[in-house]
């Protein structure tokens, strides 16, 4: 019998395959992972503490920086939480615009998440370039509406910052023509690729009972075969008015999560088409954002959650009756989705770690906050 010794390897915080500044302390036996301890905090920028010093409105641009791929989704969850806390009604058109924006966000997030995952497998930049390509066009639309590419800061309590510009809808319709072809092309490029199958099939299996007990959400949970989607489970905004399907995986491995993301992009496109059909007129649907500068909710607490592209994103707010939140807590999906990382990696090779991490699709801004 050969004498072996366990070895501790640090992956990160600066590592080309870690998403942002994430560090893993891996115990390996040869190439096989024995244990893995994630180390966080390299992007812990005190979001929650700063938020308690801000007024409710001032926090809106800070939420952009949580999950910086999906600023619109973060805005939505936060706006919902404050609206629940202060009892603010949202006009219907604003709700539709919100859904539209969040679904566009989901498409761009999943496209780049797929790109990043393949990037981690070693296909340096080419699939990423495909993944980020349509993203640029969606970002153009965001910029048109909100004024910024990434940090949109578009939602306000009881509405959105401004109405859609006149050129937005025609451009979006053009983009919708291109989207199915784009998603098909991305799938054709990657789906049957033998190298990807080698790296993804049967890797990082997360059985559904385990997934549930770890509290993971989003595409990771759905990839494990549980059709839990907040948009269906507890419909918020106007999601109960749309027809769309929930894709789930069979095995719960990296490949399933990849396929679930591809399919969710198609479903998002379906939702956007329905939004465009149902979108009410611009007549009186919008609030003047200046009217809601100083939100002073009554004493109490509120929790609002949405299905962000990464999973269940929740904001827990406690108000003490002043203009600033007394407690501001983010339930960050990618942080919780990392809980089973050690279990998912155990028994696989070191090279699989980065693939598994890529398939969870984390964003450090949200993990560390």
């Amino acid at each position: 019998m050969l004498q072996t010794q366990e070895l501790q390897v640090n992956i990160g915080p600066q590592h080309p395959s870690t998403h942002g500044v994430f560090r893993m302390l891996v115990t390996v036996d040869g190439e096989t992972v024995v244990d893995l301890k994630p180390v966080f905090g390299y992007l812990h920028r005190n979001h929650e503490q700063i938020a308690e010093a801000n007024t409710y409105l001032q926090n809106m641009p800070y939420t952009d920086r949580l999950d910086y791929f999906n600023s619109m989704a973060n805005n939505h969850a936060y706006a919902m939480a404050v609206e629940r806390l202060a009892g603010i009604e949202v006009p219907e058109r604003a709700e539709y615009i919100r859904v539209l924006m969040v679904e566009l966000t989901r498409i761009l997030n999943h496209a780049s998440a797929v790109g990043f995952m393949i990037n981690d497998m070693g296909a340096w930049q080419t699939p990423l370039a495909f993944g980020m390509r349509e993203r640029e066009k969606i970002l153009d639309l965001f910029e048109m509406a909100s004024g910024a590419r990434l940090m949109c800061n578009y939602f306000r309590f009881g509405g959105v910052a401004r109405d859609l510009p006149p050129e937005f809808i025609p451009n979006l319709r053009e983009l919708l023509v291109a989207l199915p072809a784009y998603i098909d092309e991305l799938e054709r490029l990657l789906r049957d690729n033998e190298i990807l199958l080698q790296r993804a099939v049967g890797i990082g299996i997360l059985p559904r009972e385990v997934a549930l007990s770890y509290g993971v959400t989003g595409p990771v949970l759905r990839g494990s075969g549980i059709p839990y989607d907040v948009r269906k489970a507890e419909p918020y905004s106007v999601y109960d008015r749309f027809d769309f399907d929930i894709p789930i995986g069979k095995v719960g491995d990296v490949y399933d999560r990849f396929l679930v993301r591809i399919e969710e992009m198609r479903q998002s496109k379906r939702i956007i088409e329905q939004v465009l059909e149902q979108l009410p007129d611009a007549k009186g649907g919008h609030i003047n954002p200046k009217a809601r500068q100083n939100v002073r909710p009554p004493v109490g607490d509120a929790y609002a959650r949405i299905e962000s592209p990464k999973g269940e994103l929740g904001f827990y707010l406690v108000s003490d009756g002043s203009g600033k939140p007394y407690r501001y807590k983010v339930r960050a999906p990618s942080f919780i989705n990392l809980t089973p990382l050690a279990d998912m990696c155990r028994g696989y090779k070191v090279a699989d770690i980065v693939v598994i991490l890529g398939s969870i699709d984390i964003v450090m801004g949200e993990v560390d906050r």
Partner: protein
Amino acid sequence: MAEIDPTQLELERQGVLLTTVNRFYNWGRRSSIWPMAFGLACCAIEMMAFGLSRYDVARFGAELFRASPRQADLMIVAGTVTKKMAPQVVRLYNQMAEPRYVISMGACATSGGPFRDGYNVLRGIDLLIPVDVYVPGCPPRPEALLHALMTLQEQIDRQKLGRVRWYGSSDKPQTSDFPVPTFGAKGLEIDGKLVDPVGGLPLLSPYTSPSHGEHRSGQIEHPEIVRQFPIMDPEVELENALKARGVAPEIAADDLKRSVVNDA
């Protein structure tokens, strides 16, 4: 300033041979600035967009994102540098080979940005390593980063072969590594002293390089000097604000490290 050999100055003035060599040398370096694949936070996403097809930094010869600091010429500090991450950033910078450049991308890397009041956020990477170009914006557009790259190229054009720091002819050749901060009970420390002691105040950085980076001391000189805003009257207004909020005076004195007002 460094003592420069008068002969060399004369030669440069005459522009006999060195200018041509300089131009060739600088052309070579400016056309192949390889950045390090090193993203910290939000700005890293825009940095990737800057490397991909829409903005295509390959047009500038800088598309080769290197995974290792040993192969990189340029460190784009893209995102919030937290105190927990700062030692690693300095260590990475130390590992880069000269000539090396730093672009501080976005508000967070430059000054801590919107998060500068956080207990774990470093108020600007230039407290610890020298920065050649600052890009404001949160995050800057990829075009803004391209503009920063062009600014850096202009700076490289101005460098003189005989006087660049990595050949050691400046008065303080930078041979030693930059000090890597350590974790302390209250924050980052270098030699037992807090690096960012003022907490909430903007600092005048010791590593800002108005002389285009040809001369850097490598020492942290005086991070305790507070940048003055002509219209701010911190001493007076601060105390009133603290009193109004019922904050204990010792917090005002110790944690904010602003000078205490004596009643004259």
